[in-house]
């Protein structure tokens, strides 16, 4: 599989960029909205573009296509939980309304599942950070049972579900904590497919890394534009070698992170689970800290302007640092690499 974007992927990227960037998304984010009125509408738009069903068997879409989408959502700073919705559908389980992925971070204790009566499953535990968790109608949760890992759909209106919106670094996406206290799941709403869960977790880690790369790509472009118009000492600051070299390092990091994400996306085309896990953890362990470095340099090169609330720079910096913590921190992915290297 090639790492170059196909023509279809390039058009997909264009379509998502113009859709996700319509309206001033980052200015809206700076008003620190609750997003309660935004998520369902945003997902309706995504559905019209076919993004939520991208991974459905009859659509022929791939995780590589979804990674292209994820990169554009990060670039736009979009609140839309497109990745979380497409991956929830990928489970094969049905959830009504806003249906999103709610995976426990791999560093945190898993949700536990116990058999109830008549093939029901009873879930107890906590998912600390769920994108659009407070706005969702249904969640796809992973749980550990005595018989192995399972995936289950939890209706957010069900008894025993408590959702607490969190105040986070990220002002571009609403994030909530979800607590499950003896929540009953009907037999039709859960499945014990380890392989599907492994694909979904790896894909989520991939798309979170892609999101950070998208945001970093935009920060690079904004920074290059800024240093070409800002003048000090009678020259544009982009003519100073200290500034140029910072910009070059940003560009190199963004390019290498993009390549790592594309290689990880390509790894989903094979059945080699270890190779896929390795490629995904490489992408996460390189791209997430790399994008955080790019973000830091972006602020530095914007000088005092970059430190103001009115600047878009910190909005993307916040998103990148949040991506850093989601779907496995770089440290967790390094430990997984160590395990895979044997």
């Amino acid at each position: 599989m090639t790492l170059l974007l196909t023509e279809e992927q390039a058009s997909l990227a264009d379509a998502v960029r113009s859709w996700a960037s319509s309206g001033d998304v980052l200015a809206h984010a700076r008003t620190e909205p609750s997003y309660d009125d935004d998520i369902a509408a945003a997902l309706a738009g995504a559905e019209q573009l076919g993004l939520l069903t991208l991974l459905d068997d009859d659509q022929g879409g791939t995780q590589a296509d979804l990674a292209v989408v994820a990169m554009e959502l990060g670039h736009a700073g979009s609140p839309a939980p497109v990745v979380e919705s497409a991956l929830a559908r990928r489970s094969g389980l049905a959830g009504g309304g806003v249906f999103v992925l709610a995976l426990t971070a791999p560093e945190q204790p898993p949700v536990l599942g116990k058999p109830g009566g008549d093939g029901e499953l009873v879930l107890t535990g906590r998912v600390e950070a769920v994108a659009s968790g407070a706005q969702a109608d249904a969640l796809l949760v992973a749980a550990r049972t005595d018989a192995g890992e399972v995936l289950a759909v939890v209706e957010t209106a069900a008894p025993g579900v408590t959702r607490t919106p969190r105040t986070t670094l990220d002002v571009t996406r609403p994030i909530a904590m979800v607590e499950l206290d003896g929540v009953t799941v009907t037999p039709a709403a859960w499945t014990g497919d380890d392989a599907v869960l492994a694909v979904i977790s790896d894909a989520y880690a991939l798309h979170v890394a892609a999101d950070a790369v998208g945001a970093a790509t935009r920060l690079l472009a904004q920074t290059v534009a800024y240093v070409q118009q800002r003048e000090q000492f009678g020259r544009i600051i982009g003519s100073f070698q200290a500034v140029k070299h910072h910009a070059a390092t940003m560009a190199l990091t963004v390019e290498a992170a993009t390549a790592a994400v594309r290689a990880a996306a390509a790894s989903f085309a094979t059945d080699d689970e270890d190779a896929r896990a390795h490629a995904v953890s490489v992408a996460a362990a390189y791209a997430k800290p790399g994008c955080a470095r790019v973000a830091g340099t972006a602020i530095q090169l914007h000088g005092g302007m970059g430190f103001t609330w009115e600047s878009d720079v910190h909005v993307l910096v916040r998103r990148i640092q949040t991506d850093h913590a989601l779907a496995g921190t770089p440290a967790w992915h390094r430990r997984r690499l160590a395990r895979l290297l044997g």
Partner: protein
Amino acid sequence: MSAELDTFRAEVRAFIDERAPRFPIRAGVRSPEDGEQQQELRRWTAELFAAGYVGADWPVEHGGVADHDPRRDDVVAEELARAYAPGPVSGNMLAARALIAYGTPEQQSAHLARMRAGDEIWCQLFSEPGAGSDLAALRTKAERVGDDFIVNGQKVWTTNGHWADLGYLLARTDADVPKHKGISAFVVDMRAAGVTVRPLREMTGTADFNEVFFDDVRIPATNMIGAPGQGWAIANESLSHERSGVGAGVVALQQSFAALWQRRDALPHLDAAATERLLELHAAIEALAALVRLGSERWQAGTPGITDGPMGKLLYSELNLALAELAVEVLGPDGILVEGDGGAIDDGRWQDMYLYARAFTIAGGTSEIMRNVISERGLGLPREAVG
């Protein structure tokens, strides 16, 4: 297509196993240590050409292969790196490119076949003490006198200069035009009167480069490659074919990482913090591998990125240095022992890698020049004053 490449890779690997000279494992491109190694390199260069593993991208009339798949060049470079085997002499590859693109039919027939046969070893005579990053400032002078040019000046960093038969020389033929326009390219006989080659011992303790002095060296005017003043363009054209270097470097880095990782239980100084750094480097090396793969795919698609080469070179050389520094550090007190000491780990391979790593961040365009190129050509920031 990929299965065909896999078969090719297996064939190349078997060939290298059977035929490659076995020199001590050292970082980078090193000079042969004695006459025997020189003869081995000539034989090996000839065998690589004869097998079609190098020079396949040359024009068919000079021994190239019709419909050559350039990905094969990457496979050969990677397999040579994997086996710690030397490649074909770099000066030959560079000079051949200049002759193919700009040489006269006489020059081509005089040299290309002999290069393929290992009968001619070439060195590159570009850098000077006063012309490193600013190569176009070179001052070695070639003055036209009758049917000859008389050359005076000094070159440095000349790989293989002490045993090369011929040199690919850049010299100033016109001092009255802007510096890039007054340079011409020549074929010079390294055994001509007035050529003095002096080995240059580097911080590694080995002498892998030379200084070359020209005192009234007479070169026939027919030895000029291309036209007067075309030297800068010729040099750029020949350097633009050096693509496979970073790909081979990635394989070498992956092997070095794997060697350290495999012995980690025997490295008491590889503590938790150092292990994190080692794994960070692993992720970065694999990201570099993806970067190189992406650049290679762009190149094959006929849409090469203008900064693909500089980005690969910059990231490779910096990761290589970081891995070498970490390796020496985690060897602990034994990390000070070098080749020649009975207690040296892996015959001092890591210390050699550590010292030689400094060549990669400087040679072939320093990291600073790479950042200039990326920011200027890639990002469109203003150019440094180039005179």
